[in-house]
């Protein structure tokens, strides 16, 4: 079980969180024309990297904030966690 540092609450066990996928995906702006390819990239296409990955987690049984977690998908090492609006270093 992972140990994740919620930037709002501190170190918590994984079972308080739910996973939210790739945090680098950016939703196209509203009312903006997008090609099929751009839209598919947003909705479906994901890379599944072995190694460093920036991902979303929600502290569901805690402060309910969505956070960003930089994690190694192979070793589970967590390098840093960010608030939703924080600049990614």
């Amino acid at each position, binding site marked *: *079980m*992972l*140990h994740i540092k919620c930037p709002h609450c501190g170190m918590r*066990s994984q079972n308080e969180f*739910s996973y*939210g996928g790739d945090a680098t995906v950016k*939703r*196209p702006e*509203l*009312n903006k024309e*997008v090609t*099929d390819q751009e*839209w598919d990239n*947003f*909705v*479906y296409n994901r890379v599944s990297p072995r190694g460093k990955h920036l991902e*979303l987690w*929600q502290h*569901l049984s805690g402060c*309910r*904030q*969505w956070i960003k977690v930089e994690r190694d998908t192979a*070793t*589970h090492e*967590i390098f840093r966690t960010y608030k*939703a*609006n924080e600049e990614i270093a």
Partner: protein
Amino acid sequence: MTQSYRIETGGLINRNKKISFKFNGTSYFGYEGDTLASALLANGVHLVGRSFKYHRPRGFFGAGVDEPYAVVQLYRNGETEPNIKATEQELFEGLEANSVNCWPSVNFDIGAINNFLKIFLPAGFYYKTFMWPKSFWYKIYEPFIRKAAGLGVASTKHDKERYEHKYEYCDLLIAGSGPSGLASAYSAAKNGAKVILAEDKPRYGGSLLTSDVNIGNQSGKDWADGIISELKEMPNVIVKNRSQVFGYYDHNMLVMSEKVSDHLPKTKKYHPNKRLWYIRAKEVLISSGSIERPIVFGNNDTPGVMLSSAAKEYLKVYGVLVGKKPLVFTNNDSGYETAIEFKKHGVEPIVLDSRSNPQSEIIDEAKNLGINIKDSYVVVAAQGYKKVKSADVATISEDKKTLGKIENIVCDCICVSGFWTPTIHLASQSGNKTKFNEEIDAFVPGVSKQNETTLGAANGVFTLEETLKTSFEKGKELSKKITDKDNEISIPNVVEKKYSKHDKFWCVPLPKGKSYKRFLDFQNDVAVSDVEIALREGYRSIEHVKRYTTLGMATDQGKTSNLNGLQLVSEIENKVVPSVGHTTFRPPYTPISIGAIVGREVGKHSKPTRKSPIHNWHEEHNAVFVDAGVWLRPRYYKRGNETLFEASKREAKNVRTNVGVCDVTTLGKIDVKGPDAAEFLNRVYTNAWLKLPVGKARYGVMLREDGIVMDDGTTTRISENHYHMTTTTAQAANVLSHLEYYLQLVWPELNVNVVSTTEQWAGAAIAGPKSRDLLQKLFPKTDVSNEGLPFMGYVEGDLFGVKARIFRISFSGELAYEVNVESDNGRFMWDKIIEIGEEFQIQPYGTEALSTLRIEMGHVAGSELDGRTIPYDNALEGLLSKKKDFIGKRSLQRAAFIAEDRQRIVGVVPLDKKTSIPEGSHLVKDANAPLPNKKLGHISASCWSVEHDNPFSLAILKDGKNMIGEKLYVMSPLKNKVIPVEIVSSHYVDPKGERVRS
């Protein structure tokens, strides 16, 4: 029965307390402090079971967790538990245990014929034999294998025992209370660190209980006792015995199983049977010690052959002689320790040492005691079937390839020592990259991945002096990092005997013309010949050899077999052991009760149960409940002998003719507040929200980004910046997360807050032509006329002094309202509705009638919004705004979603107007078409239409738009039904929606 193998004095058992127990129906006596194994051995019982595959007689091989054979079925306080190691089970008054793997009895076992058929049961036998004919598998092979194999039977009864889970955080978790565990725990505790010291056995001290050493002028055991009592007094230390740390998981989380009551005849009141600890440790010190390695020889599985360390433990801890004519077979000095113990108790051992002319302090001691020592000698084979009667022995050449003339020595046990294997399971589980240590012929922990350090014998260090020194220092160093304290610890002086080098020898060659089985893995009956076959057949990877032969599998996880297996593979393959590598060690290290893993989440605790504040009324009125997500909802209210079908029809009919009331408290409710709330809803829902006036409700559909319908519900504008959103019962939690996702990550500029209010409000739906009359009486001061409270209107009212929210919304297609009051007033509201509704023939209705009413009307619900349908499929495309963007809108342009013949909701009526249509059935064009018959759609929901008095279903049908009036067939192979049907509109009742607006 007398305990004829118990010595007069000595051991750590309590001889003042006799304990009676039964094994295979025979009564015996032991003492408090015995294990089932030591008590049986004290009574001279060596035969405990039959082996897994060949059903060979098996005895005891170890004295603890390393035991591969002595697995029994335990009976305790009316319960039974399989897969119990007799060497770990402490004796209690009234204990009963039986052998497994034998029928009809352990002494006469029919399966033992496998032993004579062994030529037909080589490695991969199951894979090769039970493959064909395919049809034989279920009927013949599987039942046969199931009966023949297995390590006992699981109880089919409900487990009455209670199990607990506990979460703990600590600075240092120390696994094992041997010398390294005690020393590191002591220095860390002195530095103020929060320490957990775990010991799997009942007694602390590990090897100190059996070794002949001196620490700080005390015996090893006395020193251990002193440290333990000091640690127990310290508030920052948790000391736990009978607690096995069995799994090392990510981020330094370890799981430990504590046997709280297993050693007692009956679990104490309010105590659990076992407690599972989830421990998050800053640092982990693994002091799990080492397990003695067997030397492989012929018939080395005969009862009476056991590890020399086990024989010593039975003698020193339990005062039990495993034999009176012992033969010790060793390749190192450890065997001599056992021999000396025998000699001290008046038994004459013979030592066979594979080394030529070994020299050391302890060998000198043995010689001085007059022990018969034979150098360059090996055991070729054990003789005897159910018990060792003698041993064939021979001299062996320097290169270990050639045996001398075979001689026979009479003996009643063979104590074997092939040197020591560090227990690296936990380190390996943590991700440690283990390395091979040539000095000791075994793997030891290498580079750590997590905060873990292995100490003492587990790290391949076999001298006490060095172990204590490094352990004291390590405990001090690691705790200092955490607590910033640095207490001086004086390291006690140690007196121990120096060992000479062990012999790198692990397998006795077969003498010419003999074909003895030489076992590597005792639990799984894997012999040298099996591994040879696997390699001959082309298996190379050690992981493949493991799976093909079952070497190192099952509950034993290769504790005694691992290294000898690797030695064999490396020898045949002409490789060195490190390049063969070892198989992955997986948790759990030792079997763990399923009950302990499940914990308290059983029966009604398996998931939370939510009840509405009106629940008691439902119970008082014969409600039959159904699970709706985590909620319990009334399915119907049973009157007399009514069936579900009859009751739900009555309830639904009463809504259509008079008025009904339904508890809708479980609907998800979310408060959406803030100046940008309207804009937010406008983006979340597919329809327009910016112009919804205060005091009005609107039905909305929300999509996922992929265009699939996520949920639907009504949202009401309570005040300028305050909206009350409702969701389906099942999706409430997901919708809240979904909204939070967009507010926090996608559109943080919107000034909106969302919060769940599901449990703040109790809700009652009042539906039927008489509902307005009832409402007027409930709220005499409020104008509830069609003008005062039109369809989709909202007002606040006063319900006899209780503040209420009144929504004019309908899920039944009838004139209907929903009244919400604060949860605490829920029962009051309900009582008032029932009381005043009496004159309007009000009846409560449950979820079954609710479904009937919505299906008739063609309202979609969870069975249509099933995560596979888009708005068009549900005839909801009218709610898709063309003017604005919303979540998922772009996806609706996908080719499949705009196809001409896209699936769509339809109504289905059986031609005979009688036959009920099973939900989930397929719709097909031709009932007699060859299989697979092309499916055109499926039945999503079925009911008995109370309006038309015939069955009616909803279906999602390909090209549904153009299928109205078509005749198709419903097929349900599951129910063996073929029903001719007609496709009709999904709006089966009041298609123009006049009633809800009346």
